[in-house]
């Protein structure tokens, strides 16, 4: 009885694990506007594998120590990576068109960031989130 249960658990885990590993970004279409810069702050493969580590470290440094460097800041990510759709509005974080959600929905890995953080660029002129700068 126990053997059977543990086998089931093992199979389930490995299924989840391997299917998770098979999700890559290769065939994903991202709506990135290259006009804001040529490259990300790290090489693409590093960012794919470790962006959450950078962000976690940055969040600790910022909240606890008050360090506000731009390089790994979430706002910096958002400003570059979230670009308006064809109709001129910014994609919602709930849709797959949002840069972060595109992969995270596919990989079924929940992002906690946007429970609190802004998911759209901020228009400094109008002083409103998600309004395009003109």
């Amino acid at each position, binding site marked *: 009885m126990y053997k059977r249960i543990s086998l089931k658990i093992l199979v389930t885990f490995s299924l989840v694990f391997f299917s998770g590993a098979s999700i890559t970004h290769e065939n994903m279409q991202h709506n990135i506007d290259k006009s804001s810069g040529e490259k990300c702050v790290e090489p693409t493969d590093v960012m794919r594998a470790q962006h959450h580590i950078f962000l976690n470290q940055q969040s600790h440094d910022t909240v*606890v*120590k008050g*360090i506000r*460097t731009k390089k790994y800041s979430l706002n910096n990510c958002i400003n570059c990576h979230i670009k308006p759709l064809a109709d001129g509005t910014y994609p919602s974080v709930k849709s797959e068109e949002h840069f972060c959600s595109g992969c995270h929905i596919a990989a079924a890995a929940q992002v906690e960031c946007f429970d609190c953080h802004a998911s759209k660029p*901020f228009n400094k002129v109008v002083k*409103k989130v998600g309004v395009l700068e003109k």
Partner: protein
Amino acid sequence: MKKYELKLNRRNFLKNSAMLGVSTIAPGVFFQELAYGRALDEPASSKIRWGMLINTNQCTDECDACVTACNEEHGIEDFGRPTTDTQWIRKITLTEELSKKSISVPMMCQHCENPPCVDVCPTGASFIRDDGIVLVNKHTCIGCRYCMMSCPYKARSFVHENLENQLPHAPRGKGCVESCNLCVHKIDNGENNTACAEACQKDGHQAILFGDLNDEESDISKQLKKYATKEVRSDLGLNTAVRYRGI
């Protein structure tokens, strides 16, 4: 006693190095730079303790510029449910029991040196930063509200609603506790003033003065030395960073 001596030494050191800077390189502007103009990659320092002095003589009952400015700065919305809506700063009207004299007082997190909210927080999400600002780390806050139970000033609010369109510099979200953060993003960016103090100055009341309590040369330290001021609930021995005049 020892701690106090250490502080004095550190202060002397600061002063001396500043003097050196002033005499050798540049005029007085440089001194300001040295003391406050923290670089973006430099952590907050315990040499500084940010605080506020509120002069209730200058504050009027009708004015709520500080409250409006705070709400705007941090994107605090009103859901029309006054019991659960967030308030980081509020105006309390005090009426003297004997004389019926009325005073208006802005009240917010008092940024205690020994904050009860930090003591009771099970995960350490409620913490005091090196420069004396009491903050909630919303990455580790589990929303248990024990800090709200323990705060003698009722300074904290719990986010009861789903929030959308938060401002990039003011992350806020449902299920966490929050309170006045002394406009920490402005301090980190070197603005060294709070939205409420700015609004008050703009309105011509000059009732809120923000500054470094550790620096003897700062306006706030000079005023604290000159006038009789009060710490709210001083009987609790919390050593607050927000002080009041005229109560």
